[in-house]
């Protein structure tokens, strides 16, 4: 795949506050890239730098190999779907969509056809003469999409485009977006703080915190092999436990030894303290005494398809989070087993932004 956009060591501060610190990122042609991170981590700022609405203090932005850092937004071959859509309120739907085409001096017939095509594409056939104020949130969202894509940009920037919609509509629109992207064959750079959205839609997920990229990779890599506690924690419910390497491919956690698949080859030396991530669905329940370690179920709730349980281990007195399709009872003593490939070993955090987020319950 050919490189399309490259951010090279971008730094940006607002006054005293450093928002991005030497951020580098490459986006390839036809990729669906998602910037994922908690509120205030610099996602919008990154997108605005790509769009040309913000100039970085340091670093360069390349588009198709050309340095576009100092190019104003109206000379960049990309379009944006803004966080609150930013539709022009005094123009109707057709005029909104036609805006970019008019500016570039297209013929009236071309504009008319193109507007029609775009409305078809977003399933709002015949909406040309509607007023913006008459549209629902979901419809406004689609018009914002249509307005951006009629210009045939090579890259579409989307800043939490589904953030204002309710859950059901949001899921519907996720499918729509993926379909649109396939139909158009263009690059999407997508911003969200919703991890589920990021994992289901993207080719590549870029997890950010405090203006740093914590990890970038496919959704599977991000979910299964988080590189630090922050990523593991942000991507989903996890057991994040301190441990220590005993020897190659053997780790000790809370007094129990677990075979694993990481070791010296990955840079984990015997005796080294590490963090270990075990997903709650990866802890298998066995009869008492037949697993790697034993515990007692101390709470249980049913959440839709499966049960979520807290189990206090006999050794180490640690409360493990478990998910299981079968029902077990509070007070029941069980054995637990984890497959070696489901034990994810991570380096201890060196910086604050790599730590798991403090839960404010």
């Amino acid at each position, binding site marked *: 795949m050919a490189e399309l956009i490259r951010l090279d060591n971008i730094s940006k501060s607002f006054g005293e506050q450093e928002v991005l610190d030497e951020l580098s990122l490459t986006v390839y042609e036809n990729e669906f890239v998602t910037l994922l991170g908690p509120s205030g981590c610099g996602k919008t700022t990154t997108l605005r730098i790509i*769009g*040309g*609405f913000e100039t970085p203090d340091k670093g360069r932005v390349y588009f198709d190999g050309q340095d576009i850092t100092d190019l*104003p*937004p*109206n000379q960049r071959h990309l*379009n*944006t779907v*803004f966080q*609150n859509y*930013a*539709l*022009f*309120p*005094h123009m109707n739907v057709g005029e909104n969509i036609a*805006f*970019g085409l008019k*500016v*570039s001096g297209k013929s009236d017939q071309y504009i008319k056809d193109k507007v029609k095509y775009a409305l078809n594409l977003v399933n709002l056939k015949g909406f040309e003469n509607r007023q913006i*104020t008459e549209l629902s949130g979901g419809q406004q969202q689609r018009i914002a999409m249509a*307005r*951006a894509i009629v*210009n045939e940009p090579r890259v579409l920037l989307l800043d939490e485009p589904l953030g204002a919609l309710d859950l059901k509509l949001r899921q519907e629109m996720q499918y729509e977006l993926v379909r649109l992207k396939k139909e158009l064959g263009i690059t999407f750079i997508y911003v969200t703080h919703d991890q589920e959205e990021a994992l289901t839609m993207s080719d590549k997920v870029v997890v950010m915190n405090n203006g740093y990229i914590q990890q970038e990779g496919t959704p599977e890599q991000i979910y299964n092999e988080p590189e630090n506690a922050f990523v593991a924690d942000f991507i989903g419910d996890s057991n994040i436990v301190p441990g220590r390497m005993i020897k190659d491919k053997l780790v000790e956690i809370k007094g129990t030894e677990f075979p694993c698949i990481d070791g010296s080859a990955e840079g984990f030396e015997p005796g080294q303290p590490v963090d270990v991530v075990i997903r709650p669905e990866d802890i298998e329940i066995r009869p008492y005494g037949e697993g790697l370690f034993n515990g007692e179920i101390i709470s249980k709730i049913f959440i839709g398809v499966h049960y979520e349980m807290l189990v206090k281990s006999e050794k180490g007195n640690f409360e493990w989070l478990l998910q299981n399709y079968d029902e077990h009872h509070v007070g029941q003593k069980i054995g637990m087993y984890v497959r070696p490939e489901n034990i994810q070993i991570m380096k201890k955090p060196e910086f604050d932004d790599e730590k798991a987020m403090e839960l404010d319950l």
Partner: protein
Amino acid sequence: MKKALSSIYIIIIMLFLYLPIFALMVLSFNEAKSMAVFTGFSLNWYVELFNSRLIMYAVVNTFTIAIISATVATIIGTAAVVGLDAMRPKTQNVILAANNIPMLNADIVTGISLMLFFLILRVPQGYMTILFAHITFSIPYVVLSVRPRMNRKTDRLFEAAMDLGASRKYAFRKVVLPELRPGILSGFLLAFTMSVDDFIITYFTKGAGINTISTIIYSQVKIGIRPSLFALSTIIFVVAFVALLIVNIKSKKQEVELVL
């Protein structure tokens, strides 16, 4: 009982507000020059009004000054708001505070200081000095009414237009200006009314030999006010009343359209 009381209360308030104006209107059609007794219907005072060059000049002065000063103040004030938007928040706050002071300042202080200013610079006082003074005191009101329209949303719309390939000029004309329009309109109307209404500042900056409606009424009060001024006041009131009515009916209609 409670309902009756509240109706009576409203009627009393209305009487206090409108009875004096009603009295003035009735007296403007009076035959005699009396300020107390109505002796019979006549249009004498209206005839005198339109034949009085002094009053007619004052009327023309008042409204030309109001229109020109409101227009100039609207342009300057709107430009100021646009410029402010590009500044850092701290600078904006300082300038906005400076903008608010003249509005809180007593008219008499503004009037006297403008007069001194013209005297020191040896500017001959007359039409132009009144105009200048009115532009000066109107600008803050325009800034105050346009400024709220220049918000984050407007910034985003401007960016969206740029994103779609528009030049800064085109984006401003097509997207930002329509957003500001309601603020600009109310700023203009505010400036216009402030100018028509003003007496004190006009009085100190007008010099001899020129009058506006307010200053001519004041000068006539000293020698005995003539009912032709009642006639003038009646006309002004009726015009303002009708204009207000039209505006209200129009916005009612728009509301209805929005609901449908």
